[in-house]
């Protein structure tokens, strides 16, 4: 059992080493094609799954380039007309519909089920003007049960009219949809048996009715290939990767598209994300700001639907130790823009506290920002000293909001020699303001790391639990985390969807990496 597991992991790591060592080639921008004219060709090709399977697909590709899965991401601008010309190199008719877009004028082609379609060898054109920003998709409107399964679909992004690449938003200024980086998650799944029927010309038996998926994809690839570089030449028909990366205190926009036919519960570790829009519409009561946004750690994307998630900025707030390995007297960490982010909340002490006191009273308004239902670490310091790093006799405490107490009242669970061994002292809120800062700045690593020979190593471990730091690893381990960031798995929580034809790991899985400040993310 153990041997087999190690063997699988070994093979997996061997495959990954070819891929992840190139991790710095990850693409943060969403690659795609833009208007006013987009020329697509529908044709066929094979894609690769992580277990070595090749799967026959139909797909859209840019004219002059190979067919791809998913099709080229269209990146359009609100209010700017676009024409999509489709040339059909398949042996069946094909067409495109654009869910969420209105007033599409189709020219050429013949009348199909839901729109004009291109006959084999023929062509058709679609013209429209995207009226509202958001995340959308396009897909075949011909024999959709088969053609969507075969891969004829892609993502479509509309930038707001006031889009500024330096300060980007998903839905425009004032909508609450600002972000630092954006990433596409095109969700799909495949029953390769249907594709085999099509590949061998057995169209009478190529039937979606008994659909049962064996492969699941983010952006057209199964894990572990999701984190191979974008445009990797050994994936000629799968040019997109899934490698979300941020620095601390930055926001990510995750554009999810429900491409296949099944819903997928997208689960990310590390933080909640806020769903600000679904199906290209802001979750809003008034149409101007995303006031009905939902904060969760799992959001489900529906087939034919989309969702826009803004991942809460990661600050390593409550891991339990200072993730930067700081001493208290070290300066606070700052993000790429110079903003410090280690402080969870801060408020003034309002009660006189003796060295044996067991409750704290904070300013009631600011106290609401402190964690609500769990113990947390706080530093007490005198404002006269200048800062919590300059304070000569601080106290570190473990606090918890008092149940049934007044607003702003906290129980002191641990202090003094019980907690980080600073002597307990008295604090007088009158003589110079006393500040209580919730932070893990300066908190030591809480356990002694076992000896290397007693550990098993995750493939993303840098050897150190501190952001940006490398530790010693046994020979043969490591090398995949070139910037020594912290990795969080982003995946479908239908656990079965994290397999490739019964082999774990696979399917809808990727890693989000929080990279240390200064790492280049394009």
């Amino acid at each position, binding site marked *: 059992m153990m041997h087999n597991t190690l063997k699988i992991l070994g093979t997996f790591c061997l495959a990954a080493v070819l891929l992840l060592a190139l991790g710095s080639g990850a693409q943060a921008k969403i690659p795609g094609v833009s208007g006013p004219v987009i020329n697509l060709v529908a044709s066929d090709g094979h894609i690769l799954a992580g277990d070595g399977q090749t799967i026959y697909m139909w797909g859209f590709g840019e004219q002059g380039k190979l067919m791809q899965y998913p099709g080229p991401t269209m990146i359009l601008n609100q209010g700017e007309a676009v024409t999509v010309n489709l040339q059909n190199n398949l042996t069946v008719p094909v067409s495109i519909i654009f869910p969420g877009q209105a007033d599409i004028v189709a020219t050429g082609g013949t009348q199909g*089920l839901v729109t004009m379609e291109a006959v084999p060898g023929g062509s058709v054109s679609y013209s429209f003007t995207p009226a509202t920003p958001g995340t959308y998709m396009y897909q075949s409107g011909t*024999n959709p*049960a088969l053609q969507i399964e075969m891969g004829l679909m892609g993502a479509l992004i509309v930038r707001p009219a006031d889009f500024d690449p330096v300060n980007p938003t998903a839905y425009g200024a004032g909508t609450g949809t600002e972000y630092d980086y954006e990433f596409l998650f095109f969700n799909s799944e495949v029953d390769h048996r249907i594709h085999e029927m099509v590949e061998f010309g057995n*169209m009478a038996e190529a*039937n979606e009715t008994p*659909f049962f998926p064996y492969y699941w994809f983010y952006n057209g690839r199964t894990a572990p290939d999701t984190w191979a570089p974008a445009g990797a030449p050994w994936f000629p028909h799968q040019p997109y990767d899934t490698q979300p990366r941020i620095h601390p205190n930055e926001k990510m926009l995750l554009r999810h598209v429900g491409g296949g036919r099944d819903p997928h519960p997208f689960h990310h570790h590390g933080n909640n994300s806020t769903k600000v829009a679904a*199906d290209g519409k802001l979750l809003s009561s008034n149409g101007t700001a995303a006031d009905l946004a939902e904060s969760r750690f799992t959001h489900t994307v*529906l087939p034919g639907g989309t969702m826009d998630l803004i991942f809460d900025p990661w600050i390593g707030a409550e891991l339990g130790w200072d993730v930067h390995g700081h001493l208290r007297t070290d300066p606070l960490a700052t993000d790429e823009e110079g903003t410090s982010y280690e402080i969870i909340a801060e408020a003034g002490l309002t009660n006189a506290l003796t060295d044996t006191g067991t409750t704290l009273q904070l300013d009631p308004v600011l106290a609401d920002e402190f964690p609500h239902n769990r113990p947390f670490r706080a530093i007490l310091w005198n404002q006269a000293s200048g800062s919590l790093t300059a304070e000569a006799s601080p106290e570190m405490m473990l606090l918890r909001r008092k149940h049934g107490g007044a607003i702003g009242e906290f129980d002191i669970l641990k202090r003094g020699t019980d907690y980080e061994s600073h002597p307990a002292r008295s604090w007088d809120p009158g003589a110079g303001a006393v500040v209580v800062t919730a932070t893990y700045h300066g908190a030591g690593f809480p356990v002694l790391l076992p000896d290397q020979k007693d550990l098993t190593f995750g493939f993303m471990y840098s050897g150190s639990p501190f952001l940006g730091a490398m530790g010693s690893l046994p020979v043969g381990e490591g090398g995949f985390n070139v910037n020594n960031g912290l990795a969080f798995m982003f995946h479908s929580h239908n656990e079965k969807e994290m397999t490739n034809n019964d082999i774990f790991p696979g399917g809808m899985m990727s890693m989000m990496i929080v990279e240390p400040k200064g790492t280049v993310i394009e």
Partner: protein
Amino acid sequence: MSIRYKTGRCAALLLTLLAGIVLLAGEARALTQVTIYAGQFDKTMADGTIVPMWGYSKTAGGPYKSPGDPIVVPSGETSLEITLVNTLPEDTSIVIPGLNSTTMTPDFRNGRVFSFDAVAAANGGSTTYAYDVTGVSGTFLYLSGAHISKQIPMGLYGPMKKDFAANTAYDGVSYDRDVFLLYSEIDPELNQAVADGSFGTPAYPSSIDYEPRYFLINGKSFSPTSQSTRTGQPGEDVLLRFLNAGTEMHAPTLVGRYMTVHAMDAKPLPYAKQLLALELSPQKTFDAVVTMPNAQARVPLMERRLHMTNGSQPGNGGMFTYLSVCPADIDGNGAIDRNDMLTLAQLPLGTVCEEGIPCIGDVNYDGVYNQTDLSLFLTMMRSVRTCQTTP
């Protein structure tokens, strides 16, 4: 004609009414007492397969259908009584999720629940259910509450509605026209096992291997000869009442426009949502409004879980339909009549419609108004006379 006796605080109102089930849109009568007959029938699927089914009828002796005819409870009523008469070879019952049954009596057999409510005994038994519908409005499913893993797939379900007021589904949600869109599935193997008595034997122990092969909206799957689902006139706000009597989630999605969802499970949402794809889970209902296009066109309604197939046949089928304005009812008064004919007489035969948009007179949606359309129109005017799609 209906005579209503208004009583005081009595929970069960007795009303003198015409018995029967109300027809589709536009012909509601004020009913709170309804008799439903359950019986067996055979259904021919789009690929020619004949499947044994269980269904409902408004008349004794049938014909039975699945889904059953809609139950329409007039707005303002406080009580609903359903008398179920059962000609099936198994005990059955009716439950309506979301409604308060004032007489609910679960039926336990062999230590397990056989039926959520009292049964009408097999082969001729009957029972009456009473619901308190005071202040209730919305779209509901009525379905068998007995041995549901078998009886619901056999076809025992139908739609129900009660409005807040005339042409108003909920307070603040008004519409010009409404239509039921009941999604269902059929597994011919399960139905055959029930019909030949092998269901529950080692040959077919239970519905554990349920695998639907047919997918239907309002009891019809799509095929090249399908009629559109007549929905409304150009420019009208149509309320789409989605229901799912199957065991798979289905994702209705319109091509070319959003749906404005106002309610789920007969509960109005605090804010209407504009959605492309709905998560129509089993036993769920949705109320969504869509404005019909201004031209005489049809709006494709796809099912994005891709259950748009008929058995093992290649090509389009299953849960696909066109929501159409009624092409033959040119003046939109709900009847195909002489006024429409006079309008049609002024159109030149051979008019080709704008690409992709069916035009006035193009009754059969083939892209041109020609003699075929005229003949079809005349047939409809003489025999059908309304825009109702054939049953």
